[in-house]
């Protein structure tokens, strides 16, 4: 019985390692452990959907693939959505599979500020990323799949003298269907449910789906297993309970919001647990072009610039969202809104991700509910945020747009080129903007000081045995680039360190 899904009968088993979560971190760790011959159990809260099960509509994606229907929001000055998946493969199913190597400056920053990292970690992470790039077929978005929105972005960047590139992704022969956010039904995206979870099974592992873990079982300070209760993916009814015992270790990779909360609910006591939450908040600016753009034809994300990563702290990229989401993203209501939506074929959305310095917290929700994220951008970050909008708007005009739609409350729906500087002087109150938190970090940060961190440089929870964290929650700072490549590499290294100690 290598795969166990929602069930009415209690399930128990014993393995060497239990890995909680099957996303970028969990699956990367599980496959390393399984390849070394260990018996691994991969326990995933969401259902296991094959690419033929993926939804096509945005409604279906929210229902079938997103954590809490995508309805989790930050508690702070503004309610900004916190986007994570809840499905076998985690967020690797719904993101654009962007592979960017961990920038070198981060390793020295981690060493300086957190006592982990340095040149040694940099060499090991980059070596792991080289292996990942081969294994997951990283390639640049092919010309035939770029679509006009991505090509316009390159044109605008070139006209502004901006350094930029076609995005490299874990995608083998992208078909340009513009469906990254709903999962790649063409099976081009190398998400972990397609590549590594089946390998864990093939190597004798055990996979539990629809199986949210409620508690890591501790005997004193040693982690000895996990327990939870199956949940039906459609009705959300609870099924039987399960218990998977770990002979060697439990690896927690349940996401930045769920990993700290799981450890708290399990009785793990660390002062830094749930603290130092960070993110790359971002938003999009639409350009309006005379000729149709048809942004949903071509890769969802095909162009990016990291030129502004260090100063002011921004990443720029294209992001084509489905018509259903544009329908509510455009401001207004009634016939005014419908007229605005009438130009849908002529708009292209490009977005920024802010390398924000603000930090927040993650804590358990009331009555066992979803984790609560408290987070508000400070004034410096809001200035970065605003500057990013200004840059994107200028790029659109450089690419030939006749107007931009910034989506800022208090500013006109459309701005012409002569008004573009109004964005730079726009409000700094987050309530004026529609933003989303996609890249999340922290909550179980790594570091040498047990008072200021939760895990050490190899992901081991300070003061506990057999308990490792292997997801983005260990990352102690913002990256300024898409995090999946870093998460996978760190998780691999943590798994290798576990094996070396076994």
């Amino acid at each position, binding site marked *: 019985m290598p795969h166990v899904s929602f069930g009415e009968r209690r399930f128990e088993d014993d393995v060497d390692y239990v890995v909680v979560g099957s996303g970028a971190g969990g699956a990367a760790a599980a496959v390393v452990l399984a390849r070394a011959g260990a018996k691994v159990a991969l326990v995933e809260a969401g259902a296991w959907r094959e690419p033929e099960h993926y939804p096509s*509509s945005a409604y279906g994606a929210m229902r079938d693939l997103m954590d809490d229907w995508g309805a989790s929001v930050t508690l702070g000055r503004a309610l900004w959505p916190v986007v994570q998946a809840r499905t076998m493969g985690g967020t690797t199913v719904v993101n654009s599979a962007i592979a960017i190597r961990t920038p070198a400056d981060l390793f020295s920053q981690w060493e300086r500020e957190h006592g982990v990292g340095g040149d040694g970690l940099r060499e090991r992470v980059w070596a792991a990323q080289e292996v990942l790039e081969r294994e997951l077929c990283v390639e640049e978005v092919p010309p035939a799949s770029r679509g006009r929105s991505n090509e316009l972005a390159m044109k605008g960047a070139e006209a502004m003298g901006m350094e930029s590139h076609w995005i490299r992704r874990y995608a083998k022969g992208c078909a340009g269907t513009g469906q990254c956010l709903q999962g790649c039904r063409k099976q081009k995206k190398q998400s972990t449910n397609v590549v590594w979870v089946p390998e864990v099974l093939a190597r004798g592992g055990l996979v539990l789906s629809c199986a949210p873990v409620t508690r890591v079982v501790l005997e004193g300070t040693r982690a000895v297993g996990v327990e939870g209760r199956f949940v039906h993916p459609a009705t959300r009814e609870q099924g039987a309970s399960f218990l998977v015992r770990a002979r060697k270790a439990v690896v927690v990779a349940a996401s930045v919001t769920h990993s700290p909360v799981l450890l708290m609910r399990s009785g793990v006591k660390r002062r830094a647990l749930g603290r130092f939450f960070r993110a790359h908040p971002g938003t999009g600016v639409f350009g309006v072009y005379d000729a149709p753009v048809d942004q949903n034809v071509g890769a969802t994300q095909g162009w990016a610039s990291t030129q502004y990563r260090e100063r002011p702290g921004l990443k720029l990229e294209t992001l084509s969202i489905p018509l259903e989401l544009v329908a509510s993203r455009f401001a207004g209501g009634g016939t005014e809104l419908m007229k605005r939506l009438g130009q849908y074929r002529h708009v292209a959305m490009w977005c920024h991700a802010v390398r924000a310095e603000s930090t927040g917290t993650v804590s358990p929700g009331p009555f066992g509910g979803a984790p609560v994220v408290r987070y508000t951008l400070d004034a410096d970050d809001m200035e970065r945020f605003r500057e990013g909008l200004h840059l994107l708007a200028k790029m659109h005009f450089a690419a030939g747009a006749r107007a931009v739609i910034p989506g800022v409350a208090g500013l006109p729906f459309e701005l012409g080129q002569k008004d573009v500087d109004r964005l730079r002087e726009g409000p700094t109150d987050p309530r004026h903007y529609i933003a989303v938190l996609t890249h999340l970090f922290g909550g179980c940060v790594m570091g040498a000081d047990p008072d200021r961190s939760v895990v050490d440089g190899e992901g081991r929870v300070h003061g506990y045995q057999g308990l490792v964290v292997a997801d983005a929650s260990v990352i102690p700072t913002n990256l300024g680039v898409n995090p999946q490549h870093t998460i996978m590499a760190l998780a691999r290294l943590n798994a290798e360190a576990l094996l070396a100690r076994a």
Partner: protein
Amino acid sequence: MTWLVRSAMCALYPRAGDLPGLEDCDLDGFLERFHREAPLRMSLGVFLGALVFHLTPLFTVFVPLPAFLLPPPLLDRHASRIAGSGSYWVRQAIFLVKFPAGLCWGAHPDVRRRFALGAYPADPADWRTR
């Protein structure tokens, strides 16, 4: 109370020219599915958003009537003004209605055809059980 939600959604996404409105998009079927499948707090949020929509014409078009009793031109003006309200919390409440309404409207084959997009195949709503 579905009719309250339905009428708010239709006012926010009315027919305009050759563009189908939400009332042309099998909204009843969508709402039935949404209420059955979505978490209770999401359905509740949509209902509260619809209540805000219907109870605020006094502040937008200065008429002391609920929105569902407004004549069409006033209702349209109300929909525009309330969605662009200066109050963050009112905008968020209306967004709770706009978001699922947009999911229904943008996925409908007639709307997609208007924008040269292919019709979506049915979402399988299936998963691996063994």
